[in-house]
């Protein structure tokens, strides 16, 4: 299933889509978006690439095994929850930097948590799609 149109388009679209997924993740706190939908967009981008170039090529592009994405995502979310425990606050309390960063705005552990969701969702979708493709 090789299509010149798809493979040409995806080469241009892939960076855009991935960038868009990160944008979704970052703007989520103030505007519609968030880690879940960002992860889905990222997975869709890679899945499109896999449809055009094959699952093996997609894995090479991804470099990481989707299972590692799932594991690191879950660990990251858990870690963002454990972090406040160290300062004696309840599990999953949001900790914030006291001053806003340029571009990102206020940054705290909820962003870390959302990043974990992003990685996990992308990993999950890719794990299923790539495994099915390789069947």
């Amino acid at each position, binding site marked *: 299933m090789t299509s010149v149109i798809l493979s040409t388009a995806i080469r241009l679209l892939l960076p855009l889509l991935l960038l868009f997924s990160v944008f979704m993740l970052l703007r989520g706190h103030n505007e519609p978006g968030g880690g879940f939908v960002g992860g889905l967009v990222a997975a869709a981008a890679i899945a499109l690439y896999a449809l055009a170039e094959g699952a093996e090529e997609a894995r090479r592009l991804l470099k990481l095994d989707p299972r590692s994405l799932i594991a690191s995502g879950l660990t990251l979310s858990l870690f963002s929850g454990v972090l406040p425990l160290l300062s004696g606050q309840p599990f999953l309390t949001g900790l914030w930097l006291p001053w806003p960063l340029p571009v990102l705005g206020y940054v705290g552990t909820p962003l870390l*948590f959302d990043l974990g969701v992003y990685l996990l969702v992308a990993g999950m979708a890719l794990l299923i799609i790539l495994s099915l493709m390789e069947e």
Partner: protein
Amino acid sequence: MSNALTAIVLSGFPAALVAPALYRYSPRWAGRLCPLLPLALFVSLLAALGTVAAGKPIIVSIPWIPSLGVSFSLYLDGLGMLFALLITGIGFLVFLYTPAYMGNDVRQGRLTAWLFAFMGAMLGTVLAGNLMTMFVFWELTGLSSYMLIGFDHEKEESRRAALQALLITGVGGLALLAGFILLGKICGTMELAELLGQGEVVRAHTLYLPLLLLVLTGAFTKSAQFPFHFWLPNAMAAPTPVSAYLHSATMVKLGVFLLARFTPILAGSEAWFWLVSGVGAITMLIGALLAVKEHDLKRILAWSTVSSLGSLVLLLGIGTPGATAAAMTFLLAHALYKSSLFLTAGAVDHGVGSRDIRTLGGLAPAMPWLAAAGVLASLSMAGLPPLLGFISKELVYGVTLQSTLLPQLLSGLFLAGNALMVTVAVMAGVGPFFGHKPDTPLHHHKLSPTLWLAPLIPAIFGLLFGLLPGSAASFLIEPATRAVISPSVTVVLGLWHGLNQELLLSAATLALGLVVVLFRRRIIALMPITDKGFRYGPSGWYRLLLDGLANVARLQTGFVQNGRLRNYLMISIGVAMGLMGLTFMQSGGIPGNLPFPSGYLHEWLTAGIILAGALAVTLTDSRLGAVAALGTVGYGVSLVYILYGAPDLAMTQFCIETLSIVLYVLVLYRLPLFTLLSTPVIRLRDAFMAVAIGGLMTLLMLYVVSQPLVPHVSEFFLANSLPAAHGRNVVNVILVDFRALDTLGEITVLAVAAIGVFGLLKFRSGREEEQ
């Protein structure tokens, strides 16, 4: 002393963590270092002996869950001291013995770790000053016992024995927990020091009998009393040092400990007397009879332990000050001789390679010290002067002869039980070392010194306490008896009481026991106990119960999870519908004045598109058409989200729909040809189910929107989103901050589901490759 006491109780657990590493680093040094911990604990407990013997308990209390009255409390009195000294003292011997017994076994680190954990749990149980503290440690002893019985986990027999012990003592543990909670409710406190004075209140309470039954279930399961006795001999699957430590000297005595500990609170009623002494008497006789029947050294000793535990329980059931003193003396004597005999049996097994008494004999010249230990211990078991076993037996006969109720029956019971113990003592402690050497080729090698030293030490203590009974009486037995029964009891132990009835009974016991030794085979043939007893007795009930459970599970799994997706859907939807319908009925049925849905034209159009899509999915006979129609439904729902101002949801729904279509494309051409498998009747049933659940959901939604909304939750989120969580998108703030725990749970489910899908796909392809 209070900090030291906490350290004594808890030190076993860090030691359990360190031991495996130590054994990996240097097995030799680990073997030398590990016995030092129990020895140090033993010595530091001795330092408190004077204070405790003077009747002043040492109490530590650290708040744990104050709102529930649960605290980490320790309470060291005479009873706790006797047990703690046994646990650490025999623990020292076991740790001394284990390295030589296990040899070069690489699993020694693991064994030692669990033994340390067990020791900590035991000390925690016997020194607990709060019901919940006691319960937690009590369960930890069961858990470590499970790991130790199942130590040879490659063997199915070990695994089964471990599970059996865990299940039976676990059931008892649950009963005990319920009993403790009842007791705490009745008395308004969980602290032992405050509970001990409230015996009158508890015995007069209406819930006394259930409370008593629950606590007794806990005690009887742990101490292998009838009808729970059968797990203990099976637990002999554990390595011998474990059997010596857990299943003769310490853990199985926890039930006895529990009865003694709660004597001031629960004893003194008719129910206590009949239940406790009745069960004890039955257990004593059954254990003794079954012990004589066995050939395996460890099983002989295990059944005799069951019998001894039965007599301890019987004595505590009688419950007079004299009986309590006799119980405490016998407890000490039994722990000393039985641990010695177990360790001897292990050393014989290690040296000769057999535990079958029919193949053992004449080993004394080859193992002189071990023979000395075995003989000394069995003399104490047989109750010969001047050993401690003799003194305890005299005390017991004194109690039964002076009993106000049925003195002849009680004396006769003990006479029978003790006589059989004489037989067991000869079989297990003397038989292997003397007599003719059997012709079977047994290769024995020289024993390392710790293998005979460890059994010799407790045997010698049995002799020392017999020769100097005053020291045992004033420092160990009397404080323990006082803690159990009343602070004014005096205990006098002596070897010689004159030529009286007790002495005559002792002589009769010995004679009867020796007669049984001589005519053992003929007596076994006469015994009514056959294998049928195992098939139809309590151990058969246990098997029946376990098999029944497995069968019910298989039946219901076959019904609910038969592998057909439609069936799963049917059951899930049916259950949901039933529950919802029931709730509807209970809350007053469906109100008549439900609002009729209203909307603009474009909203009705969207709803129409969704409905048409859903209808098309069910009617189409092409898969591609079904996928497209399903997509229509999904995108239609996202449109609804947009119309009602939920862009986050709409975006996510769009992405999900898109990815779903990608997935469908991937699997579509792998599926078999589209065929209609279901009959019209089944299709009608499915349609009915679908319409019913849809209709019910619609009713539910209409009902919900007709109720006034409770606004304070959403108002809270709206008011706090920006100031407290620095986010204007309330939906996302709820997801990652306010309700982040929910999200964490959901993404964990996602991860597990993904791994499940991966496993299904890979497992299938792997199987295909094999074919």
